[in-house]
């Protein structure tokens, strides 16, 4: 049943420092709130790493883990986490050994999410910082209204392809779709309403697949630097894909950027 087990059995207050690091939570029959309460308790008691096993649909894992001291934790999830995984994530690192559902990284602030599988709809919705790496594909409305501000620039890298409405109303950040399987993007309505940020697609895309506000252009040297950096990190995280960084980078990419920062500036002007 539900319990949090510290891997070091004799936990005393004066030992709460770096040498007590890893804890285990069995999420069987645990409700969303109970699971997040346990994560909070563990973080406050100084635990640096938590493995959660038997996760099955619990939502908002990693949300709420905020402390004024900016405590950080590493969370590994075994199972299938529920919707809104890592919503508002505040600098933690979350690894999912399996698929994730809808709303991963909703309004994420900082930190890193690694999904060793596929993600559902609205991946990286309103994301404003941090990095997300998804090994396989993702659903509808990926990076919906992703944004950036000054030093904060979110990054999303997806190994396979996405479904429709990728980067809808996107206002900032970097989205990279590697489409490692066939390099033919089938999604439509890519970047509809986009007015900031950049999307890099490996392979090619037809003009009718992207929104009217979006310009399709080849990469320049600055783009290559950005791609190199994040593709390297992607390959580091998923060695199982069996592709090298060079192999991926040496293929055709296109860049999608908004034609205007204010695509609707004339819409309501009389």
């Amino acid at each position, binding site marked *: 049943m539900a319990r949090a087990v510290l891997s070091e059995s004799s936990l005393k207050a004066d030992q709460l420092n770096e040498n007590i690091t890893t804890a285990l939570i069995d999420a069987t029959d645990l409700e969303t709130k109970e699971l997040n309460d346990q994560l909070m308790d563990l973080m406050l008691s100084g635990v640096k790493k938590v493995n959660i096993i038997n996760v099955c*649909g619990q939502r908002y894992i990693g949300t709420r883990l905020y402390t004024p001291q900016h405590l950080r934790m590493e969370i590994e999830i075994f199972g*299938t986490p529920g919707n809104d995984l890592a919503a508002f994530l505040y600098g933690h690192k979350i690894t999912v050994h399996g698929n994730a559902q809808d709303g991963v990284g909703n309004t994420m602030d900082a930190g890193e999410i690694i999904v060793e599988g596929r993600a559902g709809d609205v991946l990286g919705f309103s994301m404003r910082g941090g990095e997300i790496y998804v090994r396989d594909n993702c659903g509808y409305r990926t990076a919906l209204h992703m944004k950036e501000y000054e030093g904060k620039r979110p990054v999303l890298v997806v190994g396979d392809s996405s479904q429709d409405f990728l980067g809808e109303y996107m206002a900032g950040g970097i989205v990279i779709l590697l489409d490692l399987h066939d390099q033919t993007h089938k999604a439509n309505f890519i970047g509809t309403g986009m007015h900031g940020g950049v999307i890099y697609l490996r392979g090619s895309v037809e003009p009718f697949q992207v929104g009217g506000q979006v310009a399709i252009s080849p990469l320049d040297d600055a783009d290559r630097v950005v791609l190199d950096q994040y593709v390297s990190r992607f390959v580091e995280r998923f060695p199982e894909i069996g592709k090298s960084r060079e192999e991926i980078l040496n293929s055709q990419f296109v860049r999608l950027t908004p034609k205007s920062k204010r695509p609707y500036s004339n819409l309501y002007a009389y």
Partner: protein
Amino acid sequence: MEFKIIMPRIRRELYNREICACSIFGAMNQDGERFTGAGVMLAIANMRVRGNGLGGGFAAYGIYPDYKDYYAFHLMFTGKGPQAKRSAKKELDAFLCRNFDVVYDEEIPHGDETSVSDPPLVWRYFVLPKKQGEDSLLSDEDYIVGKIMWVNTRIENAYVFSSGKNMGCFKGVGYPEEIGEYFMLDKLYKAYTWTVHGRFPTNTQAWWGGAHPFSLLDTTIVHNGEISSYGTNRWYLEMYGYACTLQTDTEVIAYAADLLMRRQKLPIEIVAKILAPPIWNAIDRMNEKEKKLLTTLRMVYAPLLMNGPFAVIIGQTGRMIGLTDRIRLRPITAATRGEMFYLSSEEASIRLISPQFDRVWTPNGGEPVVCELNSMRKVLQ
């Protein structure tokens, strides 16, 4: 076929609860092997937060092998107090005896009545049509649909909520797992397809008849979303003799499926393009033949376009279909494992009862995923 329908016009009370989402789940064994409802009850319970305990229901195919040649009517007698329920049943019994040969009937077994709120009297009848006079020209199905519409609109407090052969719906007010326990679906029934629904009513009140699935003959629908074109769809279907009496938008999908698939014999691939047609921009890019087909469908069947967000699981004899609106505003995940085929609002629920998959994917909006018994045609997306 001619119908005289008096549509009930009930003033709805404003509903005042947090709006969220429904949960839908379906499991089918393509070899036709039957299994109890225990697994799907677990799976739907895992999505408890998507509902709010104001409706749950199940459709099960293959549950009445001993009566497989008879239409299984499930009747709900509502009303305040046992007297009103009994009097509705008396009136219904007289109607059934006049129009059908009833070979067997019984109260549907259930658990403790205090475990659910305000349960109606729920009865099942196994019947064959007794067509007389000009009715003898009708097919059995048309005859039955006509009689069901008559019962649902004319007999107060009596509703036929399931009417196919060798299948049945079970539904009520409560969380789906509670309804499953109430009707003992984990113990008494084995089906090769189960579809399940956990309800979060948004625009209408919760009552036993308003829970999902909605069904007509062997077609059942569980639905997550809202049909904002309900008014248009409803008036169009009324022209074909379908009376919408259950105060919920989902009803129109069941009747549309009956009209298009049973009466007009259209394949599901076409029906999907009627209910969730591609947008005009996409049609413009098609080749001439496709363009002509899709344009014609949009013209002829414009009033059957289901506008608004939806994800549905349609159940039929030997077949389970998943479909979302064309821009997938509601989620659906499909998965296969061996001969098992699953559809669900959330992947975790499928993982709970089948930890390993052969394949898992989220179908594109407007594109149906169809699973059929191996003995029938098999089309996987």
